């Protein structure tokens, strides 16, 4: 009886994983396919990967993406961490209002956020790489806050008071006591902001203006023209990058649990 139960549950689990990952697996397999066709296997090749660096459209988009993603996630981390520290010091009611406000970009449909940001930017500045960075900061900050705030809340005020009691100035106390405690949260907040910015399409599409392309918007435009196997290779690399980031974040949280024990 238990054997059947176990077998069924494994089969169910397998089925779920199949549906989740089969499409990605197909993409990865096709990226090594030595044929332009999507249905015929023409043998194994790495040529689509080797072709990538010589493709100007792709390389342009890659550098743009890296610039946007890095600058927006770093700035969002700084802003979000400061916001979390501020919210943590607020009175309960004010903190609840602030958290509700930061929640809105998370719950709002991307397309609404994208269009409203576009309207805002066209009024005050021109659309371009800079406006994309601003837009990415806007939707990344909540992720940083939600990673940092629980860390701050689990810290007792007593530790900070103890540091001051022992002669530390407020800044030194923050650097020596608060920072080491919240750092894992800041790091995972940064990684999330990075990932969100890397794979965002909708908001970027509306705020980028002409001539600027990130990897995701470039993929969209190129796919409409026709499918090039280089794009499979690029997508595979993007997937791998996101996958690695995910593992890094999880590894951090697993480590944290072990320390807590």
């Amino acid at each position, binding site marked *: 009886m238990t054997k059947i139960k176990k077998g069924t549950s494994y089969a169910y689990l397998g089925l779920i994983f199949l549906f989740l990952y089969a499409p990605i697996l197909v993409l990865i397999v096709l990226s090594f396919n030595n044929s332009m066709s999507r249905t015929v296997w023409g043998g194994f090749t790495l040529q689509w990967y080797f072709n990538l660096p010589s493709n100007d459209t792709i390389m342009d988009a890659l550098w743009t993406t890296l610039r946007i993603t890095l600058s927006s996630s770093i700035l969002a981390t700084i802003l979000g961490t400061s916001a979390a520290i501020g919210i943590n010091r607020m009175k309960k009611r004010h903190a609840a209002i602030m958290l509700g406000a930061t929640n809105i970009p998370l719950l709002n449909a991307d397309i609404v956020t994208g269009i409203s940001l576009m309207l805002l930017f066209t009024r005050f500045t021109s659309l371009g790489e800079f406006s994309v960075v601003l837009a990415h900061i806007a939707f990344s900050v909540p992720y940083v806050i939600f990673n940092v705030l629980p860390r701050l809340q689990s810290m*007792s005020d*007593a*530790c900070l*008071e*103890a*540091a*001051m*009691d*022992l*002669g*530390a*100035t407020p800044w*030194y106390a923050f650097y*020596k*006591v608060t920072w*080491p*405690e919240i750092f894992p949260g800041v790091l995972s907040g940064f990684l999330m902001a990075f990932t969100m910015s890397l794979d965002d399409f909708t908001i970027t599409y509306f705020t980028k203006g002409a001539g600027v392309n990130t990897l995701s918007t470039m993929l969209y435009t190129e796919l409409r023209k026709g499918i090039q196997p280089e794009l499979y290779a690029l997508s595979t690399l993007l997937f791998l990058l996101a996958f690695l980031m995910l593992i890094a974040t999880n590894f951090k949280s697993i480590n944290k649990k072990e*320390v807590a024990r």
Partner: protein
Amino acid sequence: MEFIQYDHVSKSYGKQLVLDELDLSVKENSFVTLLGPSGCGKTTTLRLLGGFEKPDSGKIYLNGNDITALPANLRPINTVFQKYALFPHMTIEENIAFGLKIQKKSKDYISDKIKYALKLVNLDGFENRSINSLSGGQQQRIAIARAIVNEPKVLLLDEPLGALDLKLRQSMQYELMKIKQELGITFIYVTHDQEEALTMSDTIVVMNQGYIQQIGTPEDIYNEPENAFVADFIGESNIIEGIMIKDELVSFLGVQVPCVDKGFGTMKPVDVVIRPEDVELDAPGKGFMDGVITDCLFKGVHYELDVQCGGYEWLVHTTKYYEVGQHVSLNVIPFNIQIMNKPESEDEEVLKEDD
């Protein structure tokens, strides 16, 4: 002016007044305990001295200097917190060295100090252990070591033994007294545990609702409580309304009993305090009043009896067993009858009725 002086210090949180015009002076090298129920203002009094709170009005002086506006990190005062507040990401050594590193002491000095402090709290050899590997009692000793290496003029202790179990608390009490003797600095100790206060302090300050109720030695506070709140809070007692007929004669529950107190005037309403261990039981007719046992509980060292007598339920401690329903008489020697003035503030009145 005394070593530490609170001068008309008031503090409120929002609308709630926590301290009202508090005046308190503390002698150098004394062990002073602030004792009272939660919410009485004792922790606020301590935090004001530590520099974690600023008074709304009034001044605080240390050694003659006004330190009211001085931030916590510039005061020659260190604190042992209730929940230890050790830095979790540092080793024990790093925790203890925290203050000394800020003072830019030499490496040799710091390592000598750490050794000395760990020895003082009976944890030698623990330098490189992590905080999480320690028990509650050990963590509290590290917190004490971390505070005293800085050679503060005053050590503040905010219910430091509150989270420990009874046995450990008792042994830590003796260790704290030993440490106090070794260091010869002023200790200000906050607790709601009257036994802790009576055991350790030179001076006890009993507080309630933001006011000081009584200041005195443990013996004074226990034997001569000045009002019903102190009598009730420190140990158990029988508090009975009475009338002081003249010097050395008091009337309560319909009988006149000799006592040793003088100077209350004639025919003055008073409160009479009699400790349960001071009541002697005898055969009916032999004491000043007859009664009947209504309850008898074994408490280890003694039996705790309820005796219905003269319309009042007396609490009595004896080492002898009595049957419920047995008839007895009560007797108290004049020296053990404590006379107190009726409470004057409404707060005290309210508190009495609550009980």
